[in-house]
Structures are given as structure tokens and as C-alpha cells.
């Protein structure tokens, strides 16, 4: 699961190398969304600070 964003970005790099800009952007957006979800999942501790 944690390697999924890396995999998606790697697919995006492959698409960019093949000059498929739309596909590359699609993989990048998918990777960013997965990254956001994983970030949310890992925010488990309550911050001990007063903002």
C-alpha cells in the first residue's frame, strides 16, 4: 500500500518518457490522491500543542 504512490509516479514517468503527457498527468493525479489518503491515514496522534 505504501509503495502505491511510488508505483503510480513510476508509471507516470514511463508515460512521460513515451511522450504520453495526458497519461503521465493522470498517473500523477492518481499518485497525489493516494498520497493524500495515506497522509490522512497516518495522522493518528493528537498534536500536543495549543495553536
Amino acid at each position, binding site marked *: 500500500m*505504501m509503495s502505491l504512490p*511510488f508505483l503510480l509516479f513510476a508509471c507516470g514517468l514511463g508515460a*512521460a518518457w513515451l511522450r504520453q503527457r495526458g497519461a503521465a498527468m493522470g498517473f500523477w493525479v492518481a499518485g*497525489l490522491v493516494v*498520497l493524500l489518503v495515506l497522509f490522512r491515514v*497516518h495522522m493518528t496522534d493528537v*498534536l*500536543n*500543542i495549543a495553536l
Partner: protein
Amino acid sequence: MPSDVSKLLNALGLLAVGALLVLAFADQFWFRDLPCPLCILQRAAFIAGGFGLVLNLLFGPRPSHYGVIILGASLGAAMSIRQILLHIVPGTGSYGEAIFGLHLASWAFIAFALMIVGSAIMLLNDRQFGRPEPWSSRLSVLPLTALVVFAAVVAGNIVSTLLLCGIWFCPDNPTQHFLFGGTPG
């Protein structure tokens, strides 16, 4: 700023991002400082931001490519701020060893901030976007080297994350690589 200069600066930026990720690997494998889940996500955010530099090199500079850099780096900055805040109160511990007085999350935040500011400065120059000739997809040594290094660290991170976490989530405080006898998160 001519598009050649833009290509050079983007190649240098990509090389810098690649070098940062190589240093993170050195810290992981040489100094046995295993990355926490947030640290792994910050590495992915560096790649998300660096992706915009790759697009600039392969397709020519576009404002949307700088947007890719800024969005990736902004997410990474949010992650590093979160990690900094976890340990900002004195006596609440830290994750990993400090390097030149700062922990890796603090260095990561500085790097993400530099990526955002650098992209904003590059966006100020409109001449790079209005080129009369089509963008040459031929890459000279420096951009090609930057691309190869970047692709290598992306591949390395896939392998490293699989070694550390298996196919599921990572442990909060990893003590050894999952595939070498550790426990999943």
C-alpha cells in the same frame, strides 16, 4: 529567460531532488536510520514535485508543470510540518538523528519551501513559455543524467518501501525491514 536556460535550471532542480532522495537512502542503509511512515510519504512528495521538473524537460516549460511542482511540494511541506509539530515541544522526543543540527523533517520542509519559491520565481518569466520553435525532445547530458538519477530513485523507493513495509502499511517505528523479519504496521 530563454528556454535553454529554463531547461538547464529544471535539470539542475531535478538533479537536486534526486540527490536529496539518494541522501535519504544513504541515511537509511548506511546509518541504519529506517524511515517512518511520514518520512516515506515525504519522499513520495519529493517525487510528486520532481515530476513537474520531468514534464518541463520532456515537454517544454508550461505553467501547469510548475503547478505540479508547487502542489507536490505543498503536500510534502504539510507532511513535514506535521512531523515537526509532533516533536516541537521540548521533551517529546524525536525521530532519527539530527543532521547539522536539524532533523530530517526540518530539512525536508526547507527543501519543499525552496521548491515552491523556485517554481514561483520561474513562473515570473513569461519568455520561456512563448517560444517560436517547437520544443526539442532531444536531451543533452545534464537533463538526461537528471532523468536517469530521478527514475533510479523512484525505482529504488518502490523496492525500499516494499522491503520495509511489505505490501500493506508501515509500522510507526520500524526497527528492521519487514521482509527481513520485521512486523507490518
